[in-house]
């Protein structure tokens, strides 16, 4: 289909999920992602799916856990305070080796915060998906088209690695409108996973979905298995984009909405003779360390641009291995950066 439609990020992501085969959505209202459950409520019946509004985000993630145990393509979405409530459930989903998709449209925080955009849940996504050693695969779109595509592509990735996949975006990406090329709606595959419960057993041995292992050797073996699958994910699903000059003076590091700001800044800086390049991680976990490591040797500095006090910058510092200074341009709490401010601060640094 070559036609494009104008959609907001929230709607595009929801439609992408349906196109990718999502047939079960459980969620709860929270700004700035309310259009996602609303879209699901309206469109799930068209594909014979189920929209159920839960009584809380705590219930939402447990509804997801139940549906995931049957092998279904299931999703929930929320924003920062609601994601905090889902951390327990994410730990159980990780420990039980189940697939699902979780969307976080990040808002200002901590606490109740505000409904403006922020990127202060980087740690929550990549470090804080509940207690324990689980790794929640995390991907960060930077456009409405990417939100749509990840809405669909997150499901087979979750199934392949038997883990939750978090789509991390923000209140701005969620509510801005851009032209989207829509995917054709596909059916999910039949629920025939060898671990899935429910339905008629017809004599097959019974199956247990569990994260309780009081035998510590068994618990460690489960963790080892999770780690091996994560290593496979790191080998296959690490993604990033590079944009800008091939011989840059410095490199921007940014994801999501900040990557859009940096791309504009790069174009305008080029007009002034300042050469910059952007490394835009698309997978945040697994983190694309290699481009940072390689470019850090060739530039004067890496400039991290994020809407937080400095979370993403830690992974950039780790990846660049002290080969060059790593600076931070930031706002947080819902205050937004602009290309003008980024350019001004960069010029101060140079």
């Amino acid at each position, binding site marked *: 289909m070559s036609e494009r439609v104008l959609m907001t990020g929230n709607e595009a992501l929801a439609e992408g999920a349906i196109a990718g085969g999502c047939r*079960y959505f*459980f969620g709860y209202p929270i700004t700035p992602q309310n259009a996602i459950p609303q879209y699901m409520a309206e469109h799930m019946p068209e594909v014979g799916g*189920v929209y*159920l509004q*839960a*009584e*809380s985000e*705590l*219930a939402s993630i*447990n*509804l*997801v*856990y*139940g*549906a*995931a*145990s*049957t092998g*279904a393509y*299931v999703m929930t979405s929320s924003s920062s305070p609601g994601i905090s409530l889902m951390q*327990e*459930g994410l730990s*159980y989903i990780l420990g*039980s080796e189940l697939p699902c998709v979780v969307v976080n449209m990040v808002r200002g925080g901590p606490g109740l915060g505000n409904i403006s955009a922020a990127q202060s849940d980087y740690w929550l996504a990549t470090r804080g998906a509940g207690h324990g050693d689980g790794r929640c695969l995390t991907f960060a779109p930077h456009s409405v088209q990417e939100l749509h595509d990840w809405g669909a592509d997150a499901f087979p990735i979750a199934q392949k690695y038997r883990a939750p996949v978090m789509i991390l975006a923000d209140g701005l990406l969620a509510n801005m409108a851009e032209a989207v090329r829509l995917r054709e709606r596909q059916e999910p595959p039949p*629920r025939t996973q060898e671990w899935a*419960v*429910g*339905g*008629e*057993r*017809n*004599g097959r041995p*019974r*199956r*247990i*979905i*569990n*994260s*309780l292992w009081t035998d510590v050797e068994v618990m460690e073996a489960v963790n080892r298995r999770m780690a091996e699958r994560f290593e496979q994910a790191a080998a296959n699903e690490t993604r990033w984009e590079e944009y800008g000059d091939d011989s840059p003076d410095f490199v921007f590091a940014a994801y999501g909405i900040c990557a859009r700001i940096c791309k504009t800044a790069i174009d305008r800086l080029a007009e002034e003779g300042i050469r910059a390049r952007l490394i835009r991680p698309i997978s945040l976990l697994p983190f694309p360390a290699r481009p940072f490591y390689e470019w850090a040797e060739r530039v004067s500095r890496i400039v991290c641009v994020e809407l937080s006090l400095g979370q993403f910058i830690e992974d950039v510092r780790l990846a660049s291995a002290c080969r060059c200074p790593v600076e931070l341009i930031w706002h947080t709490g819902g205050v937004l950066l602009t290309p003008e401010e980024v350019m001004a601060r960069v010029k101060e640094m140079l």
Partner: protein
Amino acid sequence: MAEAKQIAEGEPIYRRPAGLTETQMRYCPGCTHGTAHKLIAEVLEELELIDRTVAIATVGCSVYAYEYFNTDAVEAAHGRGPAVATGIKRVSPETIVFTYQGDGDLAAIGLSEVIHAAQRGENITVAFINNAVFGMTRGQMAPTTLVGQKTTTTPLGRDPKLAGMPMMVCELLATIPGVAYLARETMIDPHTVRNARRSIKKAFQSQVDGAGFSLVELVSTCPAWWHKDPIESMAWVRDEMLKQYPLKVFVDYEA
């Protein structure tokens, strides 16, 4: 008088129900979890549901229930059983789904989940094991602990001025239209065990019939943390627990 059934020489007069595995249970001597498991397992066998049932094991002494019920099983986080059960039922309505929850799991941390499942008329069955204490964690006060009952967190006895009165879960849920079958039973003598079995059967039948939410509260013993022997525990249920928690069928969709 009904005709007595003839039992052939050598034929067993009692066996483990097909709904139970052969795994030896960990429960304490005198604990009525064993009886509750057995009754559920017998009902699943009688109604021919074993092959399409998912048991939701929950947090408490019930945490190992997935080892004992001869069905698929999913372990839920503390209190979340009814939400997990709902997720499965919404994907696979033909699957029989039940939770097995203690009073800490259901009436403390999980109260919202069970009320909302009932409010939605969710077509699941809940076995609610009420023994007035947190058992697995060694004897703290629960919402259903009796006034004056000593526990590790009410060493001087439960004081309603500090901790409120015991929670009456069936009475709370009885007001909800989505409930198809709701009963409080116990298992302290053959008569009450038979009544408990009858209520458990009606509860699962209501799920098979698609009638709505079902819950059977089973007033149970905890000899370990009541610091009583099994016989004293049964007596304490009869003499004290049943005064607070009267046995009753609250809602019957067929009545």
